[in-house]
């Protein structure tokens, strides 16, 4: 056993069974990480659709949730690595600051909403409003996304390996959108843009960060803001 593996195995691991332990105990433990502790690994079993699992993490902990979760899982995450081995309800990783959240199954509506940083990976499909009002988060969805995704997205990137629903990127600011499949319709002021070398490079890094090796950045189309709706212009009244 090398030193790194030895160090890993010497770490203690906390297991929280949400069928017998109140959610608040899990979240309190996650909020009370003392400096220098080795106790940074958390296993959560029997979440059974609970809301607010692992919200408000502000330390580089690792949380594995075994089962599906309800609303707002990993919300406000700042530095944690949270993996849900199941599906997630509405608002997963809402307002994430930094860290990584991985959903092995599907995510419900407004995944990654208002996120300011970090990486959200959804291995199944995401429903409507994925990345709504995103402000710096990177979101990678292996499947499809629903309607009104990236609505008013300000910054960060949304990468979709499948298809996008209606009104993608409506009223978009400077979030970058990459879709490999079809887009049912683009929202107001969202247009397809040229994939220049810097975008290929940017997307390649995101795919690598998300652990995706079998898809090439050249397979995607890029969408962004036409920058016509940033401020009210009477000539655009029809578009509002």
């Amino acid at each position, binding site marked *: 056993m090398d030193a790194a593996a030895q160090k890993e195995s010497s770490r203690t691991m906390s297991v929280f069974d949400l069928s017998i332990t109140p959610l608040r105990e899990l979240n309190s433990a996650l909020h009370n990480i003392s400096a220098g502790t080795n106790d940074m690994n958390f296993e959560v079993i029997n979440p*059974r*659709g*609970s809301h607010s699992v692992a919200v408000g993490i502000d330390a580089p902990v690792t949380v594995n949730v075994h089962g*599906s979760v*309800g*609303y707002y899982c990993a919300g406000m995450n700042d530095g944690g690595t949270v993996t849900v081995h199941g*599906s997630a*309800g*509405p608002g997963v990783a809402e307002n994430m600051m930094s860290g990584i959240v991985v959903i092995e199954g*599907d995510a*419900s*509506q407004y995944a990654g909403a208002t996120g300011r940083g970090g990486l959200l990976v959804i291995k199944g499909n995401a*429903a*409507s409003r994925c990345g709504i009002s995103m402000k710096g988060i990177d979101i990678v969805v292996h499947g499809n996304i*629903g*309607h009104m995704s990236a609505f008013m997205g300000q910054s960060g990137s949304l990468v979709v390996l499948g298809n996008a629903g209606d009104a993608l990127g409506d009223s978009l600011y400077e979030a970058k959108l990459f879709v490999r499949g079809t887009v049912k319709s683009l929202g107001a002021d969202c247009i397809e843009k040229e994939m220049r070398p810097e975008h290929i490079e940017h997307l390649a890094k995101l795919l690598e960060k998300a652990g995706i090796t079998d898809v090439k950045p050249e397979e995607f189309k890029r969408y962004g803001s036409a920058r016509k709706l940033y401020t009210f212009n009477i000539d655009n009244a029809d578009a509002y």
Partner: protein
Amino acid sequence: MCGIVGLFLKDRSLEPQLGTLLSDMLITMTDRGPDSAGIAIYGTAADGRAKVTIQSASPDTDFAGLADALKAKGLDTSVVVKSTHAVLDIPADKTGDIRELLASVRPNVRVMGSGDSVEIYKETGLPKDVVSVFDVRSMSGTHGIGHTRMATESAVTTLGAHPFSTGDDQCLVHNGSLSNHNNIRRELIREGMTFETQNDSEVAAAYLTSQMAKGKDLGEALTGALDDLDGFFTFVVGTKSGFGVVRDPIACKPAVMAETDQYVAFGSEYRALVNLPGIETARVWEPEPATVYFWDHEKAA
């Protein structure tokens, strides 16, 4: 907010458990709405007979001697009392006359619903209390729907609780709020329909009843609802043999479905489904916006 649930059984061996499964699903959704709760269960139909679920604020006086009073009017009936509700067993061809007949002998009694197989129980209060007072757990059936209410559009009363039934064996639960229900209500009143409340969801139920009366099946009626009803809605609807789900195009009211060889289940949240048998391996999905889903025992057979 509101919480809604539905369970449509494909495997007949689960039928004795329908009341218990649906009760647990609804109780799990209690924190989505504590104002009132209700459940509709489709049981076994008896040839040539129909059931009428009635409700009274003074059950002791209204239900005492009710069977005899109705028999004296020439109606072949029996009455089973469950707390504030009672179920009348009557000849199937008498469901059209029952409201008038009841009004003549017990003017304060309200009809919750009628049909060959449906029984509807709803009251103000929490799901656990409503389920318990009507002994829903002991009920068997082929499918059922349930609702726990956070009131927005009309008063917290028994009649304002869901499910709403506006036609024989038809009922609906709704999470959301409609914005054009007053117009639709006026149109339906012009067609001859009657309304018990000012509630928007009752209008949705009546709309579907009206569409099906014009020959549409449940799926077609729900497709029509997408065109004609404005507002937020996730509907779960039951008919004698059918079970349908539809969400408005915005689809902000939550919905999760699960299907196995044994059942199709609906919950406002996944939490409502976690105790169903075989849920670990069920196909679980979020119903798409503006997409009609429906299942029918008769069409499957």
